[in-house]
């Protein structure tokens, strides 16, 4: 038990998790924003290749929103694999296949766990020490992002206490300085880079998400570098006509990539369905430990996501997925 002197009540840390966590530096983050985030309305539309080259670095902490089968930023994830980035640390929440895909591709080796399918390649990595996992939960990870997006260094939360995950995390159990009750606090998360797929954005990065999400707004605001991929690039005049629809403001965004069908093989709700056969294929690949073959078939032979869609999927299939998505209300305001 350690304590910090306070004029009113000693702040006591009752228990401390032993896990490493991405360093928290709130003033450093503010200075990054001051020095790197462009507050002028300058176009930041670029190709997925340029965006990933410029804004994803080896060793970065990467947050993606939703996942590979549900409005995931797949054109960007695939480009990260093509560019053979190294040693990424993943925000592995609300994930089925993404973690195993990125570990299998050799681009990621460290994971904050909320949920992901622990495929054979991840199991192997954990056993031989080449993959490190830190334990959290889905909501704890999104609340860490919330704290990061609030500009504070930690956040009290009402779950996670008492778990074994707590022991292997960066969480603390403290005596609440106001009530005296035991309270779990978790470290804020400010990823190095966030990638988010949205329905619409303008060339400056004002972005609209129409469906549900996991923590797209928090991820964008909390991250040092932000790449948005958008199904549609729309005119800024349209943004100005209905500003209430803007989920993420331009000044949080470093790059905008036009990516129609950017969530393929997953769904972009209201726009197109998932391609069930292709979704099953990636599940099968991660379960049967053939991620490498999946990557060689779907990702590395192509220069761009658009080229893959054209060559591997075809216009007829893409149109079919669009017509299969019969529910439109809520996604076309």
């Amino acid at each position, binding site marked *: 038990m350690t304590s910090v002197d306070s004029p009113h009540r000693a702040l006591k840390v009752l228990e401390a998790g032993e896990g490493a966590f991405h360093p928290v530096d709130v003033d450093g983050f503010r200075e990054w924003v001051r020095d790197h985030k462009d507050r002028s309305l300058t176009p930041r539309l670029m190709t997925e290749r340029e965006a990933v080259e410029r804004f994803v670095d080896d060793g970065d902490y990467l947050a993606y929103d*939703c996942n590979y089968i549900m409005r995931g930023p797949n054109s960007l994830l695939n480009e990260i694999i093509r560019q053979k980035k190294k040693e990424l640390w993943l925000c592995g929440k609300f994930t089925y296949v993404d973690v195993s895909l990125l570990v299998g591709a050799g681009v990621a080796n460290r994971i904050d766990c909320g949920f992901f*399918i622990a495929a054979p390649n991840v199991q192997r990595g954990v056993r031989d020490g080449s993959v490190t996992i830190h334990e959290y939960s889905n909501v704890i990870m999104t609340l860490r992002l919330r704290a990061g997006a609030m500009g504070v260094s930690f956040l009290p939360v*009402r779950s996670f206490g008492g*778990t074994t*995950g707590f022991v*292997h995390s960066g969480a603390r159990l403290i005596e609440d300085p106001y009530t005296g009750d035991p309270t779990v606090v978790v470290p804020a998360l400010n990823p190095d880079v966030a990638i988010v797929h949205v329905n619409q954005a303008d060339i400056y990065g004002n972005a609209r998400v129409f469906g549900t*999400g*996991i923590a797209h707004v928090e991820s964008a605001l909390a991250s040092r570098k932000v790449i948005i991929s958008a199904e549609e690039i729309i005119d800024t005049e349209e943004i100005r006509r209905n500003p209430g629809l803007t989920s993420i403001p331009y000044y949080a965004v470093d790059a905008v990539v036009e990516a129609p069908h950017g969530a393929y093989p997953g*769904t972009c709700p209201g726009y197109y369905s998932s391609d069930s056969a292709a979704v099953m294929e990636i599940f099968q690949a991660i379960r049967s430990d053939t991620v490498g073959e999946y990557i060689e078939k779907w990702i590395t032979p192509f220069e761009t996501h658009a080229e893959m869609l054209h060559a591997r999927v075809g216009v007829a299939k893409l149109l079919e997925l669009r017509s299969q998505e019969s529910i439109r209300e809520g996604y076309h305001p």
Partner: protein
Amino acid sequence: MSRAEAFSEREAAMCTVARMVEDGKTYWVAGGGTPLYSTLLGKRLYAPMAQYITEDGVVAPEPSLPFEPMMTMVASRSAHRALAWGTMNSAGLDAQLGFMDVGILNTLQVDQHGNINSTALGEYDGDHRRFGGPGGADTIAACCWRTILMTDQQKRKFVRQVDFISSPGYLDGSPGARERAGLPRGTGPWRVVTPWATYDYLDRRLRLIAHAPWVTVEDILNECEWLPLVADEVAVIDPPTEEEVQILRAELDVRGQTTDAAGEWIIWDGERYVRGT
């Protein structure tokens, strides 16, 4: 209502949970699978005014069934005709505020105090098999007023102490353990449902309160690593009705993603239920 002549054990567990669903309460259902279909069945037959919430912040949807494979969250069909769309943080924070009455979860392993393991079997710091992690279940188990846990009745799943607490039950079982760990007052596990048995808790320890007609109490206890408490009178679980299994198969899980999976078949042989395949 006529009894079903043949059903899977997994269907039986979903019917048991469906009958626990109450009008006017909110259900935070984990992922897809049995918790979601149990809730949908309960709403359809017994409690139309029960509402449910999913991890991506969908509040009270009227989903467009059937779901595409795996697409039980975020997708337009699963979010259809909801009253509100939010995010994981809106769901999590509403749960922190006390808006979620009941959480329904499934798991790999449960122990005598209702702690849940979905992370690792074996020695975490040594030889172990890794699983997916808590997902949303940690917050569901921490913040919903009650939780219903669904699992299979197997010795390797019913253990004295889980290898890893992914989501909290009554922790070490001592009074106030959850509060001392920072969890909200007055919350905790409420029922565990397997295809064979229903448990409640007495003094924060699992207690067998009902068994399926095709197994005995002894069969159940043989599939527990330790001896749970047993109620003075162990009730017999009403088996699924024809209507329940029809709705499960023909309206809810049309693709058989959940109803087809695992569990033995239970067949009415004219006099009693027997296990067969």
